[in-house]
């Protein structure tokens, strides 16, 4: 087995037992990136020098006999909408193509303190708006299982580099499914934490009331380690929850006896791929064999989550993205007066999907439409949330497909925005409710593409999700390496 193929928890043991050095690990991963990334195109920026310097520091700590953090010396990748001091943070947008933040996101401060080794910044749909990375202003990332297919999105770069062993683990962000859906498409584990569990400070906002940062990893154990490293209260984020994060690694217990699983019927209807449905059902059965109990449940407002999301997220985005005006940072277009400059800057700097959502959001907030659209959507959000509150009175977790199908072909859905929006139909309600969800591989299509299963829990039930996912992983055999078809 090559070094880059191991999981973080395996590598941690190898590092502390001095079977391998952080430098060897970094070099091996960087070599993998050099060999593979021209095909995968997962990275926007590769930070080889920093990686080697960070690895050296970890090796010195080990040599001095100091204790190292679980993620110390482990190569990681960060979605390029998370601010990194002195390293370009582009959001895969022309408007931020040369933006170098003078500050670190809180998660980056935490990871730096934990001696993580940054391999690079990963591609995304511009400003995290999309489900395929096709909206990146730079290039589309390929799915390691089939280079002609999308890796999902918006954290497609992060999911692809983890699946292709170009990083041991990665951070993504999830506003409507942007961690879970690419995790499903690329056959890795992806977790969207409870809203407020992980600080958003330094995460370039798409829709502030929905955005959360979370891990993309090779297995559930790594997911727990990364979540533990990035969680916790942050006084710089008013929406960060003021309570200590538990030790998520303690939740890695192979036991679901008596677990009550709800299977929401609204998630298994129209447009659902039959192979996906069958794989998820088989996954639920696997948990039942381990002692869980499953029954059907109804979440009646599920259908309305998508329209509510496509009002709320664009509305917030229209305001969040107003600041890209060419005045104090980012791209500036030519214009003789300030209004002309604003228009040129934004028209040239943003891609089509971003502009579409800005227009939608501006409209939804504009005078005369606020009540009909924005306020209405916030009320529907309440009803969606109440569906889940009621379900969790009876069930410990809900299980659904992560996406209605496996990875689709590049270009297949780019003509019609709405068809692309439908890729997030299973994940969006979870963001509206603010609750956590984890996606992990639960099967493969006949053509060999991974299928994702989503486990949903109530607010702050990440430990339960990890325990269920861990039990599933321990008792099934769906963790596989991608075929790299087309490389």
């Amino acid at each position, binding site marked *: 087995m090559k070094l880059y193929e191991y999981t973080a928890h395996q590598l941690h043991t190898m590092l502390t037992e001095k079977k391998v050095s952080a430098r060897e690990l970094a070099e091996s991963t960087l070599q993998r990136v050099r060999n593979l990334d021209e095909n995968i195109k997962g990275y926007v920026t590769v930070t080889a020098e920093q990686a080697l310097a960070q690895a050296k520091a970890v090796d010195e700590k080990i040599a001095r006999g100091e204790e190292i953090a679980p993620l110390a010396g482990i190569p990681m990748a960060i979605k390029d909408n998370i601010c990194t001091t002195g390293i370009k943070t582009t959001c895969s947008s022309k408007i931020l193509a040369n933006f170098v933040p003078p500050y670190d996101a809180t998660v980056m401060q935490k990871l730096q303190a934990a001696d993580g080794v940054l391999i690079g910044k990963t591609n995304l749909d511009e400003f995290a708006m999309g489900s395929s990375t096709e909206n990146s202003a730079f290039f589309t990332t390929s799915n390691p299982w089939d280079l002609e297919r999308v890796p999902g999105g918006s954290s497609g770069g992060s999911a692809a580099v983890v699946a292709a062993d170009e990083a041991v683990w990665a951070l993504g962000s999830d506003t409507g499914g942007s961690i879970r859906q690419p995790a499903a498409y690329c056959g890795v584990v992806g977790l969207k934490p409870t809203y407020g569990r992980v600080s958003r400070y330094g995460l370039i906002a798409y829709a502030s009331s929905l955005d959360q940062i979370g891990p993309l990893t090779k297995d559930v154990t790594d997911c727990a380690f990364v979540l533990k490293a990035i969680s916790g209260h942050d006084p710089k984020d008013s929406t960060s929850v003021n309570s200590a994060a538990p030790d998520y690694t303690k939740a890695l217990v192979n036991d679901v006896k008596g677990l009550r699983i709800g299977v929401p019927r609204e998630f298994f209807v129209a447009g659902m791929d039959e192979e996906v449905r069958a794989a998820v059902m088989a996954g639920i059965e696997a948990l039942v064999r381990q002692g869980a109990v499953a029954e059907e449940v109804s979440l009646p407002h599920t259908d*309305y989550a998508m*329209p509510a999301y496509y009002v709320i997220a664009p509305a917030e985005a229209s305001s969040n993205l107003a600041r890209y005006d060419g*005045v*104090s940072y980012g791209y500036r277009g030519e214009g003789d007066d300030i*209004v002309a400059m604003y228009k040129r800057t934004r028209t040239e700097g943003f891609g089509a999907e971003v502009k579409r959502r800005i227009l939608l959001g501006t*409209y939804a907030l504009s005078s005369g439409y606020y009540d009909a659209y924005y306020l209405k959507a916030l009320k529907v959000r309440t009803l969606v949330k109440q569906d889940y509150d009621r379900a969790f009175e009876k069930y410990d977790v809900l299980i659904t497909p992560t996406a209605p199908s496996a990875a689709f072909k590049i270009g297949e859905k780019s003509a019609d925005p709405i068809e692309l929006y439908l890729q997030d139909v299973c994940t969006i309600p979870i963001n509206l409710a603010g609750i956590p969800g984890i996606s992990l591989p639960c099967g493969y299509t006949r053509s060999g593409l991974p299928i994702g299963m989503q486990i949903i829990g109530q607010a702050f039930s990440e430990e339960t999700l990890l325990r269920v996912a861990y039990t599933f992983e321990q008792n099934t055999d769906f963790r596989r390496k991608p075929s790299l078809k087309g490389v």
Partner: protein
Amino acid sequence: MAMPPARLVVLLVQSTLHGHFSSGIIIFIMVKYVLLRKVKRMKLTREDVLNVALLSRLEIRDDEIENVTRQFNDIMQHVDRLNQVNTENVRPTAHALPVCNVLRPDVRQTSLPREKAMANAPLAEDGFFRVPKIVEG
């Protein structure tokens, strides 16, 4: 009203045929529905879209406007499904979690050195950001 209008009309006509409704009531219901529909399904014109574009400080070229307006209306048609939900007496949720009173003490923190604060400036002069002349939008 969750039912598509065509089906509703058919239903109503059938009901009338079966003598369930008086014709006065059915006319009343149909008129009311048509009025409601008009309010709900008002299509955006290109002028509406151009006005939203101006508010957003975005330009839409003449050759794009038709396509943009059509897509806009397609999406809004999906969004209009929200009207099927009864939200009477439902409170809006602006925040996923019921957190309040997050405050910081009035303590000064170090500011950024100016060269760092302005390192990404497209145009700077004498420690100021420089912008084209100000006109009202």
